[in-house]
């Protein structure tokens, strides 16, 4: 893009390119500095924790970074970390996909058909205000203690978030754009692909982004309640045997998963919403 911009008549000649290069160097330097600061905060925190564990705080309740690291290495050696991680991730991702798809479809329909939204509004509101966690016992009854109940937990939470965002996004589609496409000959089903979906994409992606930690919550809560697999199970088991290092190790793994998934969505967002720059 920068190349074709430089060709444009309204952008200055070659004298600009040095200024551009200098500006880019400045931006890169700043980014590097911020990255160093980010890493420093983490390192200082872990060091302080390590040094305080023992003299200042009771390692029995708070463990220490070294012990947690040792625990993780131990889990990896015994090959159980990835087994549990895979289980939790699978439940979470399946819930994410099922809840996200259902939320998108329902949100789209409600956004397009006003009457539908009005009719169902009080019921959706009532259901939405329920703490979804309270459904977990029911889900275990319906879907058993296997992975299905964890998927259902994650899906129901993700559903509402994606549904509400898609609904707002579809309502937000500009009538000018819709009419323009119609006059150009677009059929109703073409409008979805050409106007509605790309226009609502920002909203839907925002919904997906906030859903990730919630999908994780759904899956882990399901594992807390009844399971013999998954990171949630590992944390619950460690806590009940006063193995604080184990509990922290589980939390650490969940945090890493959250960061990675958020990064993926952010990258997708940058690509899909490139036009907003």
């Amino acid at each position: 893009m920068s190349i074709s911009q430089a060709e444009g008549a309204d952008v200055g000649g070659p004298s600009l390119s040095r200024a551009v290069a200098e500006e880019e160097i400045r931006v890169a330097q700043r980014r590097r500095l911020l990255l160093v600061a980010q890493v420093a905060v983490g390192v200082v925190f872990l060091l302080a924790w390590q040094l305080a564990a023992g003299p200042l705080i009771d390692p029995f309740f708070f463990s220490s970074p070294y012990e947690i690291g040792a625990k993780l290495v131990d889990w990896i050696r015994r090959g159980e970390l990835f087994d549990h991680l895979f289980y939790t991730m699978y439940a979470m991702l399946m819930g994410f996909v099922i809840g996200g798809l259902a939320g998108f479809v329902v949100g789209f329909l409600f956004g397009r058909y006003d009457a539908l939204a009005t009719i169902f509004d009080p019921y959706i509101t009532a259901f939405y205000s329920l703490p979804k966690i309270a459904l977990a016992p029911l889900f275990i009854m319906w879907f058993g203690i296997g992975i299905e109940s964890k998927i259902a937990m994650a899906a129901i939470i993700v559903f509402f978030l994606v549904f509400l965002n898609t609904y707002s996004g579809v309502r937000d589609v500009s009538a000018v754009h819709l009419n323009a496409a119609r006059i150009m000959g677009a059929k109703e089903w073409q409008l979805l692909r050409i106007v509605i979906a790309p226009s609502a994409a920002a909203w839907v992606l925002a919904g997906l982004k906030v859903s990730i930690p919630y999908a994780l919550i759904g899956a882990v809560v399901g594992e807390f309640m009844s399971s013999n697999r998954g990171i949630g199970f590992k944390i619950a088991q460690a806590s009940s045997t006063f193995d604080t290092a184990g509990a922290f190790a589980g939390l650490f793994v969940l945090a890493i998963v959250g960061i990675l998934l958020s990064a993926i969505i952010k990258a997708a967002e940058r690509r899909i919403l490139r036009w907003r720059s």
Partner: protein
Amino acid sequence: MSIQVEAVAKRFVRNRREVLAIDNLSLEIESGEFIALVGPSGCGKSTLLNMIAGILDCTAGRIVQDGQEVRGVNTRVGYMTQADSLLPWRSAEANVWLPLEIRHVSRQQRAERTKALLEMVNLSGFGKHFPNELSGGMRKRVALAQVLAYDPGTLLMDEPFGALDAQLKLVMQDELMKLWERTRKTVVFVTHDLAEAITLADRVVVFTGRPGRIKLIEKITLPRPRDVFRVRFQPGFQEVFERLWQALEGEIRKGEAL
């Protein structure tokens, strides 16, 4: 590509009040004619365009294009709205070929036609840019290229150059004029700029204030092809301008008094 507007009326109900935007309006637009609509703001010019485009339906009367009544969205016209109707998430070229994509034209043909159109509106090299990376004038030119991509016989233009500065406006008028000389499409052009209307049109229609009716139709006999930069200095331009302004001024003052 003739259009008959037959005793059309449009009534809106807004905030429990009835507004008659257009009342008993009849107008015959010939095939290949460039017709300009002027009038005080709120006189229903844009409403009439929306009705020809089929976005709004008539409360009374009917609109017939080429012997076929307009019912529902009219896909036989190209419509350049006042508001920016380019899709912001599509690059300039993807916007231009949108109507071709809708018609399932092959990728290669799309690209070729788009290249030619962007060249025509002097935007070669800007195809990959997104609308928010282009200036207001460039966006209008992309919108024009888009409307021309599927070659509708009739163009509806609602103050297409209203937001542009005076110089750019002249450049755009010049491009439109050359294009029209070449293609002789039917053009219905709404503007609040009387000089623009006289410069471009075969006939200028002056609307009354709300409810919109036709106050005066003036045939512009200035010779063609017209040079948009100099036509205002030609003999006859001033007289026409004054006659139209007199008709228009009364309507505008009436509106101010309300």
